[in-house]
């Protein structure tokens, strides 16, 4: 017993103070790729190497529309261009309640060799509907005060996101310091933290889990596959993202999202953090 205590005391406090203090991440960490659309000469090489089609081009002879979907991005960094028009940043606070806001678009005219001649317009997607989850998260906070019970559901994930969700319970990230804890049954839960994709063999289980969760409830879709189906997409065995099957309140990009990104998304869902996500980030 004494030795156990001694070891614990020697280890000291290891919990990181995020989000009160910015997260310390390695210089190698690959977060959100940033696109300087005006300076971008050619989107085709990036679209070619992008493993999930998060960067896609649609074109006719003289025009090209480039679409960037952070909800599909696996943050591999292959799109980074030597001229700096596409560069990998360390930003990971990308969670948002508006799926559309994860999508950027830019329209170009083209030169004869297919490179970009002029940037005509660029947009960030925005949902036309008000976020229904806003009222919900208020209701959750009113009912529960500062406590939040989460049921995690894996409806077809590769287990990558589960590794990071598990890490929320370790002494480093210690999510219980927020009054947040993981529960064993959806009947005890205020929030479903759902990874993806949703397989055909799991869709019924996910629907039932959602139905078994008492109102008011929140759903957070985790990772590229949870948001959009990711590299699996929709196929004979996979339905795609979580919102193909149950309503989603907050989307947390990443492959997998690091624990701080998950904390950010969960706190965003309960309204503790204002949405900053992609909206704060410059796209011009």
């Amino acid at each position, binding site marked *: 017993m004494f*030795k*156990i205590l001694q*070891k*614990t005391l020697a*280890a000291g406090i*290891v919990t990181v103070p995020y989000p009160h203090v910015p997260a310390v*991440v*390695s*210089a*190698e*960490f*690959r977060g959100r790729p940033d696109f300087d659309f005006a300076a971008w000469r050619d989107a085709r090489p990036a679209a070619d*190497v992008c*493993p*999930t089609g998060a960067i896609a081009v649609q074109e006719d002879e003289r025009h090209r529309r480039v679409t960037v979907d952070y909800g599909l991005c*696996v*943050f*591999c*960094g*292959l799109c980074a261009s030597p001229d700096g028009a596409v560069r990998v940043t360390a930003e990971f606070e990308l969670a948002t309640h508006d799926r559309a806001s994860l999508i950027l678009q830019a329209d170009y005219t083209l030169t004869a060799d297919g490179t970009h001649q002029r940037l005509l317009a660029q947009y960030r997607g925005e949902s036309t509907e008000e976020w229904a989850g806003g009222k919900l998260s208020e209701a959750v906070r009113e009912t529960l005060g500062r406590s939040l019970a989460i*049921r*995690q*559901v*894996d*409806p*077809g*994930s*590769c*287990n*990558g*996101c*589960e*590794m990071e*969700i598990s*890490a929320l*319970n*370790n*002494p*480093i990230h210690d999510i219980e310091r927020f009054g947040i804890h*993981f529960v*064993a*049954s959806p009947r005890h839960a205020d929030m479903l933290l759902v990874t993806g*994709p949703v*397989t*055909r*063999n*799991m869709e019924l*289980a996910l629907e039932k889990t959602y139905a078994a969760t008492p109102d008011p409830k929140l759903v957070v879709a985790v990772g590229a*596959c949870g948001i959009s189906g*990711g*590299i*699996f997409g*929709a*196929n*004979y*065995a*996979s339905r795609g993202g979580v919102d193909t099957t149950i309503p989603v309140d907050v989307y947390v990009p990443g*492959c*997998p999202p*690091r624990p701080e990104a998950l904390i950010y998304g969960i706190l965003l869902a309960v309204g503790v953090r204002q949405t900053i996500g992609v909206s704060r980030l410059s796209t011009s």
Partner: protein
Amino acid sequence: MDLLDELRDKFPDLVSASPAAFQTGRNQFPITLLGPDVRLLAEHLCTAYGSRLVAVFAEDRVADEGVFYNYYVFEQPGEPCYVVLKAPVDADQPRFPSLAASLPAVNWQEREIQDWFGLEATGHPNPRRVALHDNWPDVHPLRKSFPLRQVLPPFEGERHVYRPTLGEGVFQIPVGPVHAGIIEPGHFNFAVAGEPILYLQLRMFYNHEGTEKLFEDMPIHRAVFLAESISGDSAFSHGTAFCQAIETASDIDVPELAGVMRTILLELERVCNHIGDIGAIATDVGFAVANAHASRLREMVVRLNEGLTGSRWLRGMICVGGVRRAWSAAQCDLLRVTVTQVEREFASLVALVQASDSTRDRLERTGILSPETARALGIVGVAGRASGIDLDVRRDHPYAAYARYPLRVPVYQAGDVLHRMLVRIDEVKESFGILRAAAADLRDGPCCAPPRPVPSGRCALSAVEGWRGEILHWVRTAPGNRLERCKIKDPSVNNWAAIVEAVQGNIIADFPVINKSFNLSYSGTDR
């Protein structure tokens, strides 16, 4: 090789006399058969040579050759080369004799072939659906005629009926697919009498994402990322297995430095997951403090992973030809310093766990898998080594830079939870040795072979000892930097059957720790 002549002599009606040039690379010895019946050959290979049937899988070649093929991959003790039997199955007579009754290791694999290709495994003792659940319509998605993106209508078929367990005081406990912890989905149906478990029925493949079919739909450079998503806790092992297969198919020599770097990253994946498992086993017997320290240690390794690859789970680093980025001097220092730190902390963690009598009491003689059962079921990896199965791909079929480093493979006979934990402890210690030696071998040089087009029509096999055990990838390349077929075999496919055996007679309260001591991959199994 004499083996081919001997088999031709002995089985002239079964083995093709023409040369079998369907494989690429020196790690496979191909034998083409004349028909779908491999029972006599399999028996001969297993009895006369002591071979082990590693994997069974099918391929749809109807459009090109008018037949399906079943492949049977055998490993012979002490032989670095795998023997691959290729057995044609007539498209008009889509059936093949099952081996499952005598070789239970192929139980699920043969049923996958039934579900995915519509080839009937005749004589299979339990031919029910496995990979596509019972309520699916009658489709065979891995046939070439089946489009990947086809969206099937809502399922209306009958759901799976579990075998009833009858008797006074006997009742059944259904668990899953949504579990109580942060775990992947699967269904466990326990039959218990009081506390002891009489019988366990497993229902898997909830995570079936269409992965093998997806490989046929994307260029190889994208498929590397799909390989990383087969089992996210083994991203680097599966990624390496896949890239090695492509490298073999295209005769790419991986630079020495890349081999060393791959070895380091593979060992870091092992260390990180084994430490996590040791902590999780401690948790499941109520020793939460040990898990707190273990997860602190694991986080040290995960952060090192990020410092070396930009990803906490080693994603986006492996590529065909080597690795994507070389390491700076600072990164090499980080590796050395962290490994030394983790090694010291690990020794202290092990001392903590082993000093606890109550922990030992819960782990010893819990969830026993006997060596005989393990051998019969074809158990591999950590679970196999704890039950007397002396296999390790790193030693038996060296890849990356493993041939350069001495490796002691821990093998125990007891087969209980304690010894599955001891195998992990021993392996982590071995890993530290490999990591230190490999870190000293990091030199300047290219970390990736120059890209070259992948020739089409090549078949290649690749094996990696992931931290769970033997991972196998088999590919046939197609024109345009694509794949015709990619077969993935995760060690968990074999090992689930071990849990069914190991839990019998144990109290149900010990199931979590027994399950954790195997820690099998659901997504790797289900794909």
